[in-house]
């Protein structure tokens, strides 16, 4: 067999742009000062969104993965960037959420009349852009150490977003997040070091072609996967997520819950599917599925118990992340069908994307609610649907996707996962998916019920909320619903560029 090497493809420079464009914007903000921060950020959103769309079009038109070899130095000496169909989907999803959240934040900042918020606003723009760059780097990275750097950048951009308002409790939450994420990074770095010591390469494509099984690789994989689990906050490693995501300002919560935790999940997917030998991948997949199922059931009940809206949404995130982990055994391929040809693979990817859109919409809607009423205690929100009809509608539509009710992306995702579970004869996973859906229905319904209620004392908004602020959430929720119109079958776009990695599965 001829060893596969990276080669720069036409359009490969777009990947570089996707990573460095936000970094350039950060530098520009630092150079030009806080006054122009919002303007630079908005311009970057437009450009970055265009780049993401360009990458997706390039993928579709060429039908092959995009690659870029930095400085034309082949790995292991140089660095390669590569985007296949799944990465392309992640890039577009990230751009969509970041743009919507950015617009929301811009409108919200415009409402704040006091001048004291200026520093926090600049910090927000800088951190959001840095976070975007880090996410894109994770999605196109091909080198374990590069990915480590991207993950660290992600963490260091996300932590300040948690404690943007500087209250003592959010600082505590941010520290908790930082410490636990650092322990996770440490484990990941240890694993990456082991691999480098053993094989002398960190390139994922090269590792995929090794096809070796030895204890060192097993230990390295275990360390990296568990380290990433800590960053993804899968149950029972979710200690940092609820206070951090619930305490952050609404736009920050939206990107944290929708995007930031998806990066480690994406990496686990790549490690298990591309690097791990088949048997190890199957075993690791089973174990991850157990944790995922526990996460779905346990944290859905926790979400149902929460008295505060944002905490409820945060626990729901931990529960929904669980669905991404039960994909592993369901997407186990066979001799003639690679994992990415299965319906479970498409289902998992759709779950990832539709959860990102729906969760961002929910956090933004919750932010509007908190802004309007000054609190987010669910019990005292009776009748908020009258005051904020658009936010209530956004919450409801996003809720449809979480519950898996048609037509929505969540429905298609759950339907595909269920079909995979039924075909494989895996009743436990099927029951878990269904139970998770019913529990999600219960906690979403709790809020919808409050929105529709007519309390004896009508609820009044503390301040007027402009419609355009609410519309950002609605747009994301509608996007989550529209994903429901993709066909119920393995989705060609997600398979682009996966064929080259087939040999990882050859015995």
């Amino acid at each position, binding site marked *: 067999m001829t060893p596969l090497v990276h080669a720069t493809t036409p359009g490969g420079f777009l990947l570089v742009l996707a990573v460095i464009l936000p970094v350039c914007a950060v530098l520009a903000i630092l150079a030009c000062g806080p006054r122009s921060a919002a303007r630079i950020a908005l311009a970057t959103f437009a450009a970055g969104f265009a780049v993401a769309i360009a990458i997706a079009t390039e993928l579709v038109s060429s039908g092959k993965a995009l690659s870029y070899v930095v400085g034309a130095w082949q790995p292991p000496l140089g660095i390669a960037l590569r985007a296949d169909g799944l990465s392309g989907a992640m890039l577009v999803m990230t751009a969509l959420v970041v743009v919507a959240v950015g617009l929301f934040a811009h409108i919200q900042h415009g409402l704040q009349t006091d001048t004291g918020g200026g520093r926090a606003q600049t910090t927000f723009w800088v951190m959001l852009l840095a976070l975007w760059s880090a996410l894109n780097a994770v999605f196109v990275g091909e080198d374990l150490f590069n990915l480590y750097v991207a993950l660290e950048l992600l963490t260091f951009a996300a932590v300040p977003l948690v404690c943007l308002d500087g209250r003592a409790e959010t600082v505590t939450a941010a520290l908790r997040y930082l410490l636990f994420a650092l322990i996770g990074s440490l484990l990941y770095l240890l694993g990456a070091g082991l691999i480098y010591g053993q094989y002398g390469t960190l390139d994922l494509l090269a590792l995929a072609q090794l096809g070796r099984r030895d204890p060192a690789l097993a230990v390295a994989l275990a360390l990296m996967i568990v380290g990433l689990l800590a960053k993804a906050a899968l149950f029972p490693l979710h200690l940092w997520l609820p206070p951090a995501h619930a305490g952050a300002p609404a736009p920050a919560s939206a990107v944290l819950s929708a995007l930031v935790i998806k990066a480690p999940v994406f990496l686990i997917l790549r490690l298990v599917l591309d690097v791990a030998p088949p048997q190890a991948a199957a075993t690791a997949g089973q174990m991850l599925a157990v944790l995922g199922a526990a996460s779905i059931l346990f944290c859905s009940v926790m979400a149902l118990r929460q008295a505060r809206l944002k905490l409820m949404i945060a626990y729901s995130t931990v529960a929904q992340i669980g669905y991404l982990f039960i994909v592993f055994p369901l997407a186990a391929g066979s001799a003639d069908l690679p994992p990415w040809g299965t319906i479970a693979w498409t289902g998992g990817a759709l779950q990832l994307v539709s959860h990102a859109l729906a969760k961002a919409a929910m956090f933004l809607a919750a932010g509007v609610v908190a802004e309007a009423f000054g609190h987010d205690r669910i019990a005292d929100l009776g009748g908020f649907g009258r005051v904020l009809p658009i936010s209530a509608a956004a919450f409801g539509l996003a809720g449809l996707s979480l519950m898996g009710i048609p037509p929505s992306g969540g429905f298609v995702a759950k339907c595909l996962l*269920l079909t995979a579970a039924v075909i494989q004869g895996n009743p436990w996973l099927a029951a878990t998916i269904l139970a998770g859906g019913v529990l999600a229905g219960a906690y979403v319904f709790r809020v919808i019920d409050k929105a529709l209620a007519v309390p004896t004392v009508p609820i009044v908004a503390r301040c007027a909320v402009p419609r355009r602020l609410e519309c950002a959430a609605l747009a994301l929720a509608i996007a989550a619903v529209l994903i429901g*119109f993709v066909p119920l*079958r393995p989705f060609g776009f997600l398979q682009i560029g996966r064929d080259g990695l087939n040999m990882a599965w050859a015995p």
Partner: protein
Amino acid sequence: MSGAGLLLAAALFFPLVLVICCLSARFRARALAVVVIAPLPALAAAVLVPEGRFAFFPAPFRLTLVLDQPGAILLGGAALLWSAAGAYAASLMARDPAASRFAIWWLLTLAGSLGLFIVGDVVNFYLLFTLASLSAYGLIIHEQSASAHRAGVIYVGLALLGEALLLIALVMLSATHPDANPQIRSVVADLPASAMRDGTLALFIIGFALKMGLVPLHVWLPLAHPAAPTPASAVLSGVVVKAGVIGLIRFLPFEAGAPLWGSVLIGVGLVTAYYGVIVGITQPRAKTVLAYSTVSQMGLLAVLLGIGLDTADPAVTNLTAYYAVHHTLVKGALFLGVGILATTGGRRLRLALLLTAVLALSLGGMPLTSGALAKLATKPLFGYGWLAGAMTLAGAGSTALMLHFLLILRRDTAGNPAGSPALGQLLPWLVVVAAAFLIPWSLYPAVSGETVPGLLQSEALWKVTWPMLLGAVAMLFVHRLPQRLGAIPEGDIIVLAQAAQPLARRFSDRIGGIDAHFRRWPVAGFVLIALAILFGGVLMLQA
């Protein structure tokens, strides 16, 4: 697309277009006035579109609409009741500040429940089923009383459970089918050969039984139907429960038969038929009695379908639809009648009571009414064994329950001041009453294959009369029972479920405790290391 296809499409999409129009505030303010026309395309489709016509919408909608005989019968009756009840609602709630919201929920439920009768593909069936189920919540809680809220919460909880069961059943049904969104007809034809046949059938029966309100999954029905405003009660009890009936008609393999599940349906149906009567007869509120009567009647429909499944007789679906449309119109008229009687007094009251009495006794099978036709049309199915006897006894029970209902009505309306209901409410009621008599007569020859004059022979009359007399005699005795009224609370066994509430709360607190434990630093750190060792160990064993 042909004219027939367009009409079918309009039946489904016209109400949805009206919902979209409600985005405009000006339209929304008058939305309740237009709900009367929303089901008219469906009514026209039921009458004008020839059987077997279909409409197909390509991707990304992948929607198939198809009209067959059971679908057309149910669609026609349901559309008529929706329209009349809509007119009634427009008159009743003209001054209600929340009328526009009510109209939106109304239109959504309407679109879902009517669409179910004509949809032909699996995914859109689920979509419309969900739409009808969940939108009905808005109708139930409209009056915002504490009891309406409780009913709404219980309703949504069970509806979500039903959705989940139905989803897995549909996935099991079509998992091995090459088309991702197959036609219902083709997957159901493959079902008898499927390895998961029994599991799929069991899930379908449970899922649709929840919607129909078969015992013991009926608990939401006697709470939800009376809680809604009167016109909404009429459509909930008359049409929306039929979502379960059309589901069973569509998804059970009547061609191939399934004797085991046929017997299960017969058994559950009989228990439900009697249970509804026994509990209903202890209820002091007229609308609750009607709701229990719906439970009982749905049991009879389940028996019919069970016989069809048992004997592999597809013709049963037509007879079931015929029985169901009789129930749709009569029950709708009775619920509207409760509202009419509440505002009527003096001499007109006696006339209205008389009309209501005829309608009510029609459910028990009073000669020359639609009830008698439905019973005579289905009678040959039961044979001459114990089943025929059991069904006759159920008819007697229905009569007794309806006599109980009439006694309550007489008591409630005794003190009414002289007056007459608004014309906008009276007229729709009279239309439904007339339809309840005329439609079953006009369909009878086509469905049963017998002629109308055969119905007027004394033998046929006696066949339906003596169970009524039996029921009347039984009521004479039951009427004297002390402390009968209110002996069983509304929703009967839901009270038992509520006794389990502390248990659920303790479980939830336990989960909360475990979560707090896991979120402590030492525990989380330990779990992290333990997981790393576990993963490493297991992966090393593989290497």
